């Protein structure tokens, strides 16, 4: 059928749409490139001139402050010009089609489109229609992928645990709706993590999830046993009204991360969360603020990783 649209004819990364389908070496290249960028953020002058003169358009069809801000910071630290477009979904469906919007922006000399959209696959549609020198970075599409989040999660894990080949990682929560979970699972399996677990009720696990290479647990205590990394997913309020869960309290009882449950994991286990956190729903405050939590460093690493992604694609 079609060639992997993320890679150009030379096998180089021209768009970042999903971690799935990326060669192992490309993933490692991104993680390795992120390290020196992490140093840049420690300096007084937190900028490098790499993308000077280039324009990064943040095309957010789904509202988001956090992700958009980190992309903006990352682009500015590369000396790029940043233009933010928050296109609320309703006005977009009333007026211009997605492709018309992109075509109009192309005419304004865009170099990188950072796209977040509620429909899975939207960035692929855009990538098929941009000009050769334009690059698309997926900032989250539906429930399909959030590759920069997956990459920063991998970076975080590598920072604290060094070697993927010995890790047991547990991903807890609403995997069904989570693009973060899917991206992280693909990244972990590509980098050789021997055991990736998903923990959640049957209502929140997608059909055929084992085919992604994970072990399914419905009992959180059993699933956390001897884990090196625990990743907590955010639970959205809508799940209660969709007959997927009875209440947030019951969810916390069965699947919330407390210090007591965390004690079942390895003593040096780290706790991660893509944010924003629902304290008392998926994670207890004592754990979120506790010694195992690396939630705040995740955010810092996120800037370095996004700088790495932008530098790599914009140069190909």
């Amino acid at each position, binding site marked *: 059928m*079609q060639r992997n649209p993320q890679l150009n004819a030379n096998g180089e990364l021209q768009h970042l749409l999903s971690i799935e389908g990326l060669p192992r070496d490309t993933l490692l290249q991104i993680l390795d490139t992120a390290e020196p960028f992490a140093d840049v953020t420690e300096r007084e002058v937190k900028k490098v001139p790499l993308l000077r003169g280039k324009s990064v358009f943040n095309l957010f069809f789904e509202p988001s402050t956090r992700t958009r801000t980190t992309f903006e910071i990352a682009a500015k630290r590369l000396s790029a010009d940043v233009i933010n477009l928050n296109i609320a979904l309703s006005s977009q469906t009333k007026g211009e089609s997605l492709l018309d919007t992109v075509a109009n922006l192309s005419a304004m000399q865009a170099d990188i489109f950072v796209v977040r959209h509620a429909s899975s696959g939207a960035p692929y*549609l855009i990538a098929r229609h941009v000009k050769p020198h334009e690059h698309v970075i997926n900032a989250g599409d539906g429930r399909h992928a959030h590759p920069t989040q997956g990459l920063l999660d991998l970076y975080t894990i590598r920072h604290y645990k060094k070697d993927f080949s010995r890790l047991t990682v547990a991903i807890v929560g609403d995997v069904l709706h989570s693009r973060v979970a899917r991206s992280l699972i693909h990244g972990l399996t590509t980098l050789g993590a021997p055991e990736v677990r998903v923990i959640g009720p049957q209502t929140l696990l997608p*059909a055929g999830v084992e085919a992604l290479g994970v072990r399914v647990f419905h009992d959180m205590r059993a699933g956390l046993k001897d884990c090196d990394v625990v990743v907590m997913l955010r639970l959205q309020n809508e799940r209660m009204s969709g007959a997927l869960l009875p209440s947030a309290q019951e969810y916390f009882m069965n699947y919330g991360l407390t210090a007591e449950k965390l004690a079942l994991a390895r003593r040096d286990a780290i706790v991660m969360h893509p944010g924003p956190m629902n304290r008392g729903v998926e994670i207890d405050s004592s754990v979120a603020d506790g010694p195992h939590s690396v939630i705040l460093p995740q955010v810092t690493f996120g800037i370095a990783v996004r700088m790495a992604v932008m530098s790599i694609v914009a140069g190909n």
Partner: protein
Amino acid sequence: MRILIRGGRVIDPASGRDAPGDVWVADGRIAPPGGTPERTVEAKGLVVAPGLIDLSARLREPGYEYKATLESEMDAAIAGGVTSLACPPDTDPPLDEPGLVDMLRRRAKALALARVYPIGALTVKLQGARLTEMSELAAAGCVAFSQANAPFTDTQVLWRALQYAATFGYRVWLRVEDPWLAKGGVAHDGEVATRLGLPGIPPFAETIALGTLLELVRATGTRVHVCRLSTAAAVAMMRAAKKEGLPVSCDVGIHHVHLSDMDLGFYDSHCRLDPPLRSQRDREALAAALADGTIDCAVSDHTPVDEDGKHVPFAEAESGATGLELLLPLTLKWARERKLALATALARVTSDAARVLGSPSGRIEPGAPADIVVFDPEAPFRVTPETLRSQGKNSPFMGYELAGRVRATVVAGKLVYEC
């Protein structure tokens, strides 16, 4: 006009005849040999078969003229060798009034191309609440009643509709999909949808609805044709139902015999279909069931969709594929892959479809209506926006080369297409 179709390989699936010969046409019917022909069609090296009968082709009139018109779609039909087609009631407004049905039949008759059999709406506005005036609609020319792709939520109304239809011996054609289980779904609920992050329609959405329908058929005795099977499990249920002797038949969309959810690739919205393309295992079961006759016939489910409807993210795209011109080559492709005799394969789009439709066409024997297709089974047909005559250029097979080109089409004894 007297026509002689000379020297072809004549295949009549109904009788199983497959032999070289001549076919004579006079006064709109297949005629015994003799007399001087006013036109002769040289069919050496070609197959001469009954014209294809497509049980589901959307002509988009009335209401969706910006997607396609009767002229363009009938043009596509005869270029594809389709001489009779059944048109589902989901036009705008839906075919729930005799006046609309009448107008459609007149328009089609005036064009004098393929025969059009309108399928009437089973409920008013297809809303699944009130019965339509089935007798009036039947008098206007509807040969069966259907809900197209509109769901039945109220099973009591479904029961009453079946009872009413059975009273008069009307046939009911229904898709089987539980609307609650299918709600929000855009793809087969399986590994591919999980990977692509698309909301899924589980296979039991089909089997649960089919189970309900079969139970109602047992109770009412209505002649029901189940449209567009998509799961292996539903195939097994139909096999058992036929063995039991229930008055049921079924069809499959020709695309579902060739494609599975793997073909979605990187969100190809041309593969957004209703029902969705399911797993390889389902595809295999459908292809096998069509071969052994458990599935009575294949249809194109022709649904022209304009670019605006497809150049959007997968979940937002309109479902459907263009197919009138591809029904023949795709049927031949299926036959080749399953190593089926051409007569058996063609039966699924001619005589068997005729039986479901209640039409006298679909046979080549003296006295039968002269609806004939002459085609070259080996000649390549490259599927491009230019070669397709339908206004719908939405096909998962765009750019492919398929074997099977129509050289001539005869409808009611008139030569309507030649190439």
